[in-house]
């Protein structure tokens, strides 16, 4: 699996994503600068966590307008897999590659802690190595993860089995609609999620639940 990690100014989980990818896929991802106009040919594009452009406007809004995102959009439409983690998820909703929006956490506080995540959908490139209904633990670390969409969109996401990850009941850190933690686009090649699977690929860091997400991708894309 060939992959690329996009680096926006003030991305700060780019290295973490690259380390996890290399560990699981056995190949270093290409680090692609936001000012570049074209991505190299890859099977997977990762939009990492961080505070792109400081997130002084709505989170991800500036990054969505960056040069490289035009090519990310194009490649996504061609079917290349795109994974947006945390700030990457926010960028994906701001570009329109995923529906809905991510608002301030309901309690208005940044939340950093491990949370229980229910794997709702395993028929995807991103989650095939998990068991349906299984509860895994990923850390969250965000101030704006409160997923919002209108009821029709939410119904549609659920009806098409595009909600891949949900916060376990009682463990929702941000007040997101229907406990949504991660969703797919209609073509099922773009996943955005707020939790950080790349931070749990090493038993020393409190677990390896994230490894299977990357293994799923390697299996599906190699």
């Amino acid at each position, binding site marked *: 699996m060939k992959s690329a990690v996009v680096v926006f*100014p*003030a991305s*700060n*989980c780019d*290295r*973490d994503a690259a*380390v*996890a990818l290399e560990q699981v896929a056995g190949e270093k991802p290409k680090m692609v600068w936001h*000012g570049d106009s074209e991505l190299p040919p890859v099977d997977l594009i990762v939009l990492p*966590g*961080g*505070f792109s*452009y*400081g*997130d*002084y406007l709505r989170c991800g809004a500036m990054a969505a307008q960056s040069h490289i995102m035009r090519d990310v959009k194009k490649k996504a439409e061609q079917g290349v897999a795109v994974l947006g983690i945390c700030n990457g998820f926010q960028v994906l909703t701001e570009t329109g590659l995923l529906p809905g929006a991510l608002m301030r956490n309901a309690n208005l*506080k*940044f*939340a*950093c*802690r491990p949370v229980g995540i229910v794997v709702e959908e395993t028929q995807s490139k991103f989650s095939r190595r998990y068991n349906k209904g299984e509860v895994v633990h990923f*850390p969250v*670390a965000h*101030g704006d993860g409160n997923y919002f969409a209108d009821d029709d969109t939410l119904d549609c996401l659920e009806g098409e089995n595009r909600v891949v990850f949900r916060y376990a009941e009682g463990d929702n850190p941000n007040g997101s609609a229907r406990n949504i933690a991660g969703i797919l686009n209609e073509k099922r090649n773009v996943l955005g999620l707020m939790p*950080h699977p*790349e*931070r749990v*690929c*090493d038993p*020393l*860091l*409190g677990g390896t639940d994230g490894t299977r997400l990357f293994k799923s991708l390697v299996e599906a894309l190699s």
Partner: protein
Amino acid sequence: MNAMSPQTVREHGLTDEEYNRILKLMDREPNLVELGIFSVMWSEHCSYKSTRAHLRRLPTKAPHVLQGPGENAGVIDIGDGDAAIFKMESHNHPSFIEPYQGAATGVGGIMRDVFTMGARPIAMMNALRFGAPDHPKTRHLVSGVVRGIGGYGNCMGVPIVGGEVNFHRSYNGNILVNAMCVGLARADRIFNSAAKGVGNPVVYVGSKTGRDGIHGATMASAEFSEDSEEKRPTVQVGDPFTEKLLLEACLELMATDAIVAIQDMGAAGLTSSSAEMASKGGSGFELNLDHVPTREEGMSAYEMMLSESQERMLVILKPGSERAAERIFRKWELDFAVIGITTDTGHLVVKHKGQVVADIPAHALSEEAPIYERPYRKASAPAPLPFNAFDPSRSIAQSLQKLIAIPDLASRRWVWEQYDYSVMADTVQSPGGDAAVVRVHGTNKGLAISTDVTPRYCKSDAFEGAKQAVAECWRNITAVGAKPLAITDNLNFGNPEKQEVMGEIVASVDGIAEACRALDFPVISGNCSLYNETNGEAILPTPAIGGVGLLADVHRMATSAFKRSGDAILLVGETSGHLGQSLYLREIEGREEGPPPPVDLAAEKRNGDFVRGLIEGARVNAVHDVSDGGLLVTIAEMAMAAGFGADVVLPKIAAGPVPAAFGEDQARYVVTASQKEADRILAEAKAARVPATSIGRTGGSKITIVGAQSVAVSALVNAHESWFPHYMEGELPPSA
């Protein structure tokens, strides 16, 4: 130029003697720009004029110390060509005036101190002291400071892995925000600030200069009064986004061969960076302010030289490398401007609009500041605790349940969950343990980090209290299995012009020095924050200690949670039941009395080395140091972290069960091990003359004090976790 009026001199915080010294050094009257430059450079904050003579007594050398005090941060060798770079610094005064920005820029400032030396910051800690919970401002200050630290640190992507939060009424008018940053570099790629050589371009990079923070250093060198709120314009405004870009751009430039010297523009901005760099390098600077990138038009030379706008660096480049360097900063969309050149005059010459607006010998600014041997009075020894200071009939279990929920012992989860502590994917021990541990990226090594001080001990006996701060830091690092290597100190005190405050400073320095020598734990960097007084009321003396230790293999790290039922619980160290200045005495009996627990440094070393050996040999399952609250609180913390309890037999001591449970005797650890292993450990301890006794067994849903009462672990967890969130939501009466 008109003669300087005495009033103008006073407004710049300079005394008549200091002004006369300036006249002598200049051999003429300074103009207003020059006066402004002197005033910040000679402020207490920049010059350490009250403490410098005493700080010399601190031990700063060891074979593993690569850089001691005097640079932007200290550096230690951690093997394999790696170096750890760290420092702690206060942002107390600004954080009281404007908590969010004050704390945020404190974080930004200490990070720049570390990355300006060539290190990537890999961990942050914060030692915070607030006023009484029921003071009307406290909640607002806690909220603002925590949000400010998180807002800046989270954006930087550097994990904030721990620290301290304490409450005491002495901080009602002067909170303390001490931020510590630890970075990682290659030992042969350390950068310093000595601007050696003539004809090298002086380059300004980072943010533009604005009118913010002018005279911040002077503000931080004076007491507060009722009108401290009016000083808000002296507080800087942070921009973590720019800092993140500056970090990446600097590290990219540092990978090339272009840099002669580099220093961040912190307190006193362009003035201190240029004066210090020139003075250290034995060179002079000629600066042309016309080239300084400014945020607004019409800024005067005075404003540009004294602005404390954040996220700026001064770099001395090798001639000819300007182009390549500029390309890096443009890529990161940062300002880059050649604003001067190094000279051989030894003078800081500043030009603006074709005029020379300042011309001062650089060493006069950074080396000729007055050094004061201020008169001091050491406090008399605290009276011993009367024998009837506590009621021996009180329920120990009820006291435990109460203590575990007091503001100084309740869980700080509310705080640390607002900090990204797991970014960089190397945090192997998260907040809440004895020390945080971050892995050295790509290796099995780890750095253990802890900040410590017990100000109530320091108030009672500044010398013993300072010793205790160092010893506790050493113990916390030891308790995770690491070898303590070095410390940074952040000395927070009141007005040094008062003899009793100066006495506290002198005694604290002596206490730190003695403990550091005994524990082979040198001081490699630090910061002093004086004048922490409002309306004449000083804070408790607070010499915060930040320590770093090395864990050879993070797989051999200890944590404090009980691991399994049926383990033997061992207490390492001597228990005499010292209740003076204990939390028990203060919270249960309402008495802040007596001497603090004495620190036997030889015992500290012996007991700590013994426990570290057990951890290295993978012979113990859980380790926790005994500190605030005493033995029973320690055991309760281990149980709460595990979710199950223990049967505890309190040590039989003459003072009785209450002092045995809650006395704060030093040099103690609680460890757990299988019964078989525990027997061997006890035999070895005896042979090594380390006091160790078996005090119970893990298991069950309660903490049961054998022969007395019990309390459910779930009830303890509930009490322990509730106080902070409830307090911050305003749900509890603040005195609860």
